[in-house]
């Protein structure tokens, strides 16, 4: 998904911070939220 977004918005590919936020949201925040909802 990150790669697909990056190919559409190239600036998305260029910043380490963007990658960090993306990974924090998808690999940590969303799983935590799902676990709490269950």
């Amino acid at each position: 998904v990150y790669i697909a977004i990056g190919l559409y918005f190239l600036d998305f590919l260029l910043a380490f911070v963007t990658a960090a936020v993306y990974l924090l949201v998808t690999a940590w925040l969303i799983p935590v939220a799902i676990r709490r909802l269950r």
Partner: protein
Amino acid sequence: MSWVAHDMEPYAFERHWRLKVAFIPLLIGSYSPDLMTKWYVYGIHLGPWKLEASDPAQFHRGWPGVGFTHSLLYGVAIALVLWKVFGSKIWGISFLIGQWAHALTDMGDTVGTMLLFPWTFHFHLDAWAYAGQTGRLTDAAAYFSGLGGMWDLVWIVYGFFSWRVVTSSFFDAYVYPADGSWSWANRLIPRAALLTLYRVAFFYGTSRWIAWTIWAHVMHHYPYDLSWGGPHWVPAGHP
């Protein structure tokens, strides 16, 4: 210049040196030579104005310019500050390793680095074309069409062979205990989030190598040229 090697090299060092290095300064060191300067190499638009270096290669790697950030002495100077002023030997050594890896890796292109600054001689292997002066997109297309992109691929493959360095157990056994910064951060941020942050550069490097390769060769059909010094369809910068 290199695009992905600087993301992946710190994980290779982690694999081999484990408790002897701290990951955060290792990564900062690996990024440090370009950290404050790359935007000016490519230029940015601020309203009607464009801020950019008149001679990007000279600014980026030369003297006068900020090329000293790619020298061995720069790494030593910052490492000494971290060690003697801030009192962390492991941060100093780790920064030094990361910064030296960057300076040595960037020797691979046609502009090279002033490794032994204040001696302003550029050490360059000429393996791939330096194309920072052509702008961000052409630079990306050229880089991912030549040996620079292949050199990055070596680091990615090595990273995947070293996949254990991004596991939770490796993080707990070596990365976290080697550097007190993690436990300090853990007072504010859960451990799972810290583990995610530790993995970012690995994810970032690998993902953008794939993305830029697709962009250059599937979406835009830039020709591959894996000859020494290539791709020759771009005007290479020289010192």
